[in-house]
């Protein structure tokens, strides 16, 4: 990982011969600059970058599916204490109040800020939870040939949901709140926060370890083995 491979440029740059290339040779186009490639996959543990615009075309993590399965499962398990336990406690004189992942949303709902409350709920609870669920479903479900269609749909949803999970931003929000309020009263870090931090780390690790190409290749192999009409060529990440 981290090493960058720049294959594909030989196939891509010679435009004159490009017109005579058989169409089947092209395997991939850069999603950010539309450059065509013949060599579609990064070697295991490496990244394939677009030689023209530098976009990451493919990051082939070692044992991607197994890692993603494990990480998404631990994410789901960590979600339970993170949501159930208080994250912070603020006390002033003899009064005290706790903050959990959900009561901030509740308070905003109660105050009539529906749109803001839904946004906070979605970005800090639903999207991360959905991400873990989808990743778990994708990585476990892609093992069975019969699940190809729902897994393909889950992959599409994951692609849309991914950028709305904002555990890291929420974490920074907690830190700002912690520092900002510490001169007004006594702020205490509660056990839920440690679970939340662990969940945040697991979430980023799951995002990095996940490789959609591997899953698509898996689905294509299933389709080939069961003799159905295979979906369009996906190359083969073995």
């Amino acid at each position: 990982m981290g090493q960058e491979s720049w294959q594909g440029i030989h196939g891509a740059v010679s435009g004159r011969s490009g017109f005579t290339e058989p169409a089947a040779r092209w395997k991939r186009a850069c999603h950010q600059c539309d450059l065509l490639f013949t060599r579609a996959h990064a070697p295991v543990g490496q990244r394939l970058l677009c030689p023209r615009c530098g976009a990451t075309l493919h990051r082939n993590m070692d044992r991607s599916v197994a890692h993603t399965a494990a990480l998404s499962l631990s994410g789901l398990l960590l979600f339970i204490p993170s949501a159930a336990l208080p994250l912070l406690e603020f006390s002033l004189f003899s009064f005290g109040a706790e903050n959990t992942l959900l009561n901030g949303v509740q308070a905003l709902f109660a105050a009539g800020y529906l749109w803001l409350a839904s946004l906070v709920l979605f970005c800090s609870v639903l999207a991360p939870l959905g991400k873990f669920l989808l990743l778990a479903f994708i990585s476990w479900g892609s093992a069975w040939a019969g699940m190809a269609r729902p897994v393909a749909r889950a992959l599409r949803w994951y692609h849309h949901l991914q950028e709305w999970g904002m555990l890291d931003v929420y974490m920074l929000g907690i830190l700002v709140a912690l520092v900002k309020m510490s001169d007004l009263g006594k702020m205490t870090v509660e056990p839920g926060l440690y679970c939340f931090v662990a969940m945040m780390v697991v979430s980023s690790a799951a995002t990095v370890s996940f490789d959609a190409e591997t899953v698509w290749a898996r689905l294509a192999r299933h389709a080939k083995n069961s003799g159905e009409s295979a979906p369009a060529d996906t190359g083969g990440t073995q």
Partner: protein
Amino acid sequence: MNRPARALSQGFWTCLGCRQLVPKPPAASCLCPRCGARMHGRIDGSIMLTWALTITGALLLIPANVLPVMTVIYLGSGDPSTIVGGTLELYHNGLWGIALIVFVASVAVPVMKLVGLVLLCLIVQRRWDVSPRQAMRIYRVVNAIGRWSLLDLFMISILVALVDMGAIADVAAGAGSTAFATVVVVTMLAVRAFDPRLIWDVYEEKITAQPGLAQHKSHRENE
């Protein structure tokens, strides 16, 4: 003359959902055979949509900054504060590190995002003479910083639940927060609506018109 081959001009579409390369169908759009997402050669009406969302964001930035986002009442006294006011207050209290974080996340990032989006639209539409690598850099920065401007809103939602002790101490959200939340969502959607491949389309057109530029470019690319 060495010219990189583009998928669209070679008769291919790339699915933005799963990045599958698909031979161009006869229709104006189709469903991706692999993942089922709707496909186009380029995002449909990309520039128009980006403009619309960017302008919406820019207009909403006014109430987001004028209206208060949060009111902190401590021992019976407290004023509603706007985003900039809250940052200044943090700075005056000596918390300049936190003030800097909040300033970057909730003032600098939204403005930078809007400026970046306007620049990107103009580069494509007005065919400004900007190197496509520079334009891609703008695109990537705008894409990466987008989510961080929700920081202040998350902090408000935490404080609203945390500091709720009646007259002694209380934090309430303000109307500005709704506007601000909408700015963040709208600009995130605007970045998604922008198709960076248009930058390269414009560039291709330019180097077709000026072969000298292409020569220079292919040298750089083969290095």
